[in-house]
């Protein structure tokens, strides 16, 4: 390799990003291929796109030194090449091998990105792929293309794939057309794209051959080889534009063209083409120079940015916000020192700064937001794959796909979401036979919906399956010794048991949901992004998992509190109200401290005790209670003092504090102090479990 280390490092990062994109797209395309495999009518463009994905991945992996990934992609590419060239046929076994191979590719690329690539699964996968390629080998027939009368010049420019598609079209009895269209150089890509889209509605675009425009430097001609069952008039009608010639190739060829009959005879010679000059004038009558300047720009206006850079930017914004607070404090000091005019001027400047900072903060935050729909696409693949494996029929319905969430949150909840959906199919949705017996529709329904609710985004996964059998949950909990025979247990308490580590209601651990990930891990992962998860269920009618998430993790407003001389930040989104409470207001129910708040009994948690701070047990005569709530749960957190609200930037506290209950990160205050940020969801969970 050449170039500086920096550029190579960047190139490898480019590889990882591109490889992930390719794999995502491949997964989507494979799902579509799985669907059309069932009907036996697959769009060749789709199969070719999948081949090209594997092909690109192989090339990339090879050149960046990830030979294991390249090896797997190479074998997939061979199978897909045989498929697109019609040498093998799609079978259910092949689909399942391809899905598994994609899963493995995804795992390898993720592994490569994290520096620990595990290649142990590749040999088995390669042998499965190769078995697939040889098992379904079709006998190869060679059908002469000579009857079409294509010149060698055209045949030589066709790839092996295009040749195959041409043959397939001929074999299926479709008519092959040569369509010549001329365009102006300034607009050809858009206009050709439009023409191709129109043609695709009535057949297959096999090849697009560019030729230098006849008679004018500003023009370009294209010969499109097109297969269709339509007659010549039908194809001309499809194209729906003047200035193109349509000629049917082959024995029955009748050289006519409704728009340009005289020019449609010899498509490959310059003289036969429609005048590019004439057409370009017609297409762009004015300002060709201005058009040229415009189209010289890139088509896409998107920029791909590493989220780490956005994090850095957000941190800087956060620090600027803190600097602003310091300036505000100085305004106060200047004023009290008697420089009132100066203080007013400084105060005005600080206000302008604040306004601009708010805009900046909002702008950076918006860049991080992506629609939940991107997550839904992944989930739809999981649904199709798992339901196919399980022999179940599932109709996935999505709502609110344009709801936006912080990219990092979406990343972090992908795996928990996947587990919830696997659970729905595995444990919830019944088999088609069972559903019919129960008088339900044969196809189960999973509804995936999201919506914004205040400062939160709520994502719900709802199925119409068999629901959770509460009696069975209690029985399992008894067997595991998690509860006693006579423990009073409400339905909600029983559902909470599902979130305990190692708890499973499944008698037979299946490959689908028995992968060592339980609902406890799901809850922990969601709590790690300050989210909450809840379950509702109705026997025989289905279950609903409700995930409540903050919109962003970046800059948040926090309530700064004090306990036994220590300062903490509490995300304001979790705070419902703060109240002053007398010690005599506290009652004890089942060894737990509660207070009466209007018409509800509010359980209390003493943070001093929770964090086992020395002196944390002492309660003054009157004290503050911060009422917090996430989803439907409420809790009163006992604190010594409320110090006010402030914008904070939550920073990770790293591996050392990982798993430390009740803390989600750290934040810098304006006065150079660093304080811990409370994980309210985590504290509520701990309190609900009764461990505090």
């Amino acid at each position: 390799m050449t170039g500086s280390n920096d550029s190579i490092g960047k190139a490898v990062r480019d590889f990882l990003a591109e490889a992930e994109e390719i794999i995502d797209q491949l997964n989507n395309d494979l799902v579509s291929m799985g669907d059309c495999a069932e009907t036996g009518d697959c769009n060749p463009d789709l199969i070719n796109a999948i081949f090209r994905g594997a092909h690109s991945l192989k090339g990339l992996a090879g050149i960046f030194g990830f030979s294991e990934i390249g090896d797997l992609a190479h074998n997939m590419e061979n199978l897909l090449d045989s498929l697109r060239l019609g040498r093998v046929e799609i079978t259910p076994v092949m689909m399942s091998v391809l899905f598994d191979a994609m899963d493995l590719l995804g795992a390898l690329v993720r592994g490569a990105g994290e520096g620990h690539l595990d290649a142990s699964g590749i040999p088995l996968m390669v042998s499965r792929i190769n078995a697939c390629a040889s098992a379904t080998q079709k006998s190869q027939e060679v059908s002469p293309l000579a009857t079409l009368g294509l010149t060698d010049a055209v045949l030589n420019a066709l790839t092996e794939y295009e040749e195959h598609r041409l043959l397939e079209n001929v074999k299926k009895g479709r008519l092959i057309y040569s369509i010549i269209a001329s365009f102006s150089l300034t607009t050809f890509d858009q206009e050709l794209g439009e023409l191709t889209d129109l043609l695709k509605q009535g057949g297959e675009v096999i090849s697009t051959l560019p030729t230098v425009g006849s008679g004018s430097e500003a023009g370009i001609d294209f010969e499109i080889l097109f297969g269709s069952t339509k007659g010549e008039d039908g194809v001309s009608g499809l194209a729906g534009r003047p200035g193109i010639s349509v000629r049917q190739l082959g024995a029955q060829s009748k050289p006519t063209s409704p728009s340009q009959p005289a020019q449609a005879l010899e498509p490959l010679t310059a003289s036969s083409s429609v005048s590019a000059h004439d057409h370009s004038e017609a297409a762009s009558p004015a300002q060709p120079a201005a058009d040229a300047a415009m189209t010289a720009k890139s088509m896409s206006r998107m920029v791909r940015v590493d989220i780490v850079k956005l994090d850095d930017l957000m941190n800087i914004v956060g620090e600027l916000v803190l600097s602003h607070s310091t300036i505000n404090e100085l305004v106060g000091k200047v004023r009290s020192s008697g420089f009132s005019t100066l203080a007013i001027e400084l105060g005005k400047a600080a206000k302008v700064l604040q306004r601009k900072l708010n805009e900046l903060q909002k702008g950076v935050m918006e860049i991080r937001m992506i629609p939940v729909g991107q997550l839904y696409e992944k989930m739809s693949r999981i649904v199709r794959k798992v339901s196919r494996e399980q022999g179940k029929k599932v109709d996935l319905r999505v709502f609110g796909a344009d709801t936006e969430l912080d990219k990092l949150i979406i990343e972090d909840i992908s795996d928990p979401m996947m587990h919830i959906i696997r659970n729905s199919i595995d444990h919830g949705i019944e088999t088609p036979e069972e559903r019919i017996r129960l008088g339900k529709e044969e196809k189960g329904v999973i509804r995936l919906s999201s919506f914004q609710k205040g400062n939160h985004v709520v994502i719900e996964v709802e199925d119409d399956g068999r629901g959770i059998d509460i009696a069975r949950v209690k029985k399992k909990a008894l067997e595991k010794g998690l509860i006693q025979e006579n423990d009073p247990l409400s339905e909600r308490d029983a559902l909470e048991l599902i979130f305990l580590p190692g708890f499973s209601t499944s008698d037979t651990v299946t490959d689908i949901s028995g992968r060592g990930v339980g609902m406890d891990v799901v809850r922990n992962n969601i709590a790690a992004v300050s989210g909450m998860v809840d379950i509702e269920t109705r026997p025989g009618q289905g279950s609903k998992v409700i995930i409540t998430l903050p919109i962003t993790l970046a800059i948040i407003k926090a309530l700064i509190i004090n306990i036994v001389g220590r300062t903490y930040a509490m995300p304001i989104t979790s705070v419902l109200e703060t109240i002053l409470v007398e010690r005599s207001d506290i009652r004890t129910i089942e060894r737990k401290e509660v207070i009466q708040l209007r018409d509800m009994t509010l359980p209390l948690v003493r943070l001093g005790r929770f964090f086992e701070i020395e002196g944390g047990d002492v309660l003054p005569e009157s004290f503050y209670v911060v009422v917090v709530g996430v989803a439907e749960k409420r809790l009163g957190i006992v604190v010594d003092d409320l110090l006010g609200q402030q914008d904070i930037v939550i920073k990770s506290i790293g591996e050392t504090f990982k798993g430390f209950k009740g803390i989600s990160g750290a934040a810098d205050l304006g006065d150079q102090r660093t304080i811990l940020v409370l994980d309210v969801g985590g504290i509520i969970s701990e309190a609900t479990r009764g461990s505090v």
Partner: protein
Amino acid sequence: MKKILIVEDSSAMRSLLISTIEALEGFEIVEAANGFEALRLLPRERVDLVITDINMPDINGLELIRYVRNSAIYKSIPLFIISTESSERDLAKGLALGANEYLIKPFDPADLQKLLLKYLG
């Protein structure tokens, strides 16, 4: 400065080609992510050499090579194919259509540099 047009739909592969070429002095690079962009760039840039992949959507490398070789203006531009060994038959076609050289992915950057110097040095 000699200008090289890279036609390749993989941005990572383009990055690598660029870092390989930039290690040499005296070359300027124009990038095209597909055949369309290449066709649009050719008349706007005075290109001295084209490096193209074969497998690309819509307009593939072979079609691009045929276009360049049939054009009175560009027909003498040196043209390299960069492709994987799986498309052997397409590669042979590319050479038959008039490509000057080919490189198999994964290519050795030193080979590409040598070829560039041979044609443009």
